[in-house]
Each structure stands twice: as structure tokens, then as C-alpha cells.
């Protein structure tokens, strides 16, 4: 673990010195986790892809401002989360300009034939964007409240409260689901 951290630090320093190959390796190391952060916030696979690409590009441009003693992953996740939130804001502005029937449901999944998944998707759609992001980041991805707060630019207590409300809402909407998983 410590060795991985050292390797990462070496890669960060090399990337800061302008070695593109080092940044390429950092992308390989972090892209999957960055995708899960973005997906938790934007909801759809396509938007998550866009947010991840934007996030890495922002990170590359801001690389000289990163202090190598910090955790690169945490710094990157904040940037990717910010790119995802920005994407959501732009989507909302665009959606407001479009006709109501063209506004897409947040969870259109081709494999959603499954009744349970359909209900889950609808229940999650009942949550606010932030509550949904918080519950996914916490209960699915295992991030801590402080990390989620930093990513979404909200106080830790707000992240905690969002999680509580999101769980209460899902409990109310899905309370009758039987254990079929």
C-alpha cells in the first residue's frame, strides 16, 4: 500500500515535470474510480464518461498546483465531481429550454426490463440529485461523509443529513420489496 503511494507520488512528480507517459499511467490507475464518482452524480453512463474526460483534462491543466504530499486520488475525485456537477448544471439549463416531453428520465437503462430494477430506478429518481449522489457515493462506493462533503462542496453534516433523508425515502418507497437478490 505504502509502495503504491510512493509509486503514485513518483508518477505525480514526473507528470508535473511534463512527462506525458506518467500522466497516462495516473489516468489508468484512477479512471475506474473517477468514473464511479462521476456516475454517482450524473446518473447516466454517457454523462459519466463526459465528466470523467472533463475532470482529467482539468486535473492535467491544474497539475502544477497540486501538492505531491496530498492524496492524488482525493484531489482528482474533487475535480471529477466538480466536472460532473458542472455537467448537471448545464444539462438542467438545456432541459429547461427544451419542451417538457423531451426531458429524459434519469435512469433509462436498456436492461431495465427487470421489475425490481425498474422500481429501484424510479425510487432513486424521487430523490434530489444531491441525495442520490450522496447515497450512491456512501452506500455503493464506500466514501466517507467528509470525502463526500469535499467532493460535492457541502459541509460534512449536510452529507450526513442527505444520506439520512435519502435512506428514509428509499425505505418508504421500497419497504415492501422482498429479498430477491
Amino acid at each position, binding site marked *: 500500500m505504502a509502495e503504491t503511494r510512493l509509486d503514485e507520488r513518483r508518477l505525480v512528480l514526473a507528470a508535473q515535470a511534463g512527462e506525458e507517459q506518467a500522466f497516462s499511467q495516473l489516468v489508468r490507475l484512477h*479512471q475506474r474510480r473517477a468514473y464511479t464518482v462521476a456516475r454517482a452524480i450524473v446518473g447516466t453512463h454517457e454523462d459519466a464518461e463526459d465528466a470523467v474526460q472533463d475532470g482529467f483534462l482539468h486535473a492535467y491543466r491544474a497539475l502544477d498546483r497540486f501538492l505531491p504530499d496530498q492524496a492524488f486520488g482525493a484531489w482528482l475525485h474533487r475535480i471529477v465531481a466538480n466536472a460532473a456537477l458542472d455537467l448537471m448544471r448545464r444539462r438542467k439549463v438545456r432541459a429547461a429550454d427544451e419542451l417538457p416531453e423531451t426531458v429524459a428520465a434519469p435512469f433509462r437503462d436498456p436492461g431495465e426490463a427487470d421489475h425490481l430494477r425498474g422500481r429501484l430506478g424510479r425510487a432513486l429518481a424521487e430523490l434530489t440529485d444531491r441525495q442520490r449522489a450522496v447515497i450512491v457515493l456512501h452506500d455503493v462506493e464506500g466514501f466517507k461523509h467528509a470525502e463526500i462533503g469535499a467532493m460535492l462542496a457541502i459541509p460534512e453534516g449536510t452529507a450526513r443529513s442527505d444520506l439520512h433523508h435519502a*435512506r428514509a425515502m428509499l425505505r418508504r418507497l421500497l419497504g415492501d420489496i422482498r429479498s430477491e437478490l
Partner: protein
Amino acid sequence: MSNEIQFPGRSDAPDERFGQLIRPLYEPPQEGTYWDGLHTRIMNRVRAAAPDDVVEWWMVMSRWAKMGTVAAMILAVLAGALLMQHEQREARMAYDAVLSQPPTYSFQMDGEEDEPPPPANPILRSGLP
């Protein structure tokens, strides 16, 4: 025993039941080829935005600010030189003006009348033809 999902209460630990329920909806792609493709797209965008091409608004402002500062300094130096030159010329002109005019001093004390011309010397007068 009930087979209904038992949702636990408020807790700091991730809720495994919720996690299991929601995870399939957020599952990242599993194929290695997908991640290779994403990596390629990310790096293509990074290469397209080489450091020299990255021009943020604050960088433009910074350049303008630097140019403005240099221009202001040059103007200040020029203005200072012109002002000094002008002051020196004025001083020289005033000095020259003072030197070129003969002094026309006349001292007269208060209450003093104009001095009468000296009386003609009778000896000298008589000696003259």
C-alpha cells in the same frame, strides 16, 4: 423468519443492503477494452490541450496586466524625463534673462530728496578756455 429487506437505521457505516440494491444500476463497465478506449480518449483530449495551447482567461488577463505595467512604467519614465527637461529649460531661460539685462538699481531712502547736481568748480571753470 421474514424475507423482507430490513433497512437499518442511521449509521456512519455504508449500508450493505442499500449498496446491494443500488449497485447494479451504477455498475461500471467490466470489459477491459472499454477502459482502454476511455483511456485513449482522455489522453487524446489531454494531448489536444498541450500546455502552450491552454489559454485561460486569467492567463490572458495576466499577460495584459504585465504589458500594461511595462507600458505604464515606460510612460512614467518618459513623463519624468520630459518634466525634468522642461524645468531645466525654464530655469536656464530665467537665469539667462537675469544675466542679459543690465542692473538698474536706484537706492533712495525714505524722506530723502533727489540729490542736487554738484556745484561747478570755479577753479576748473576759470582754467578752461
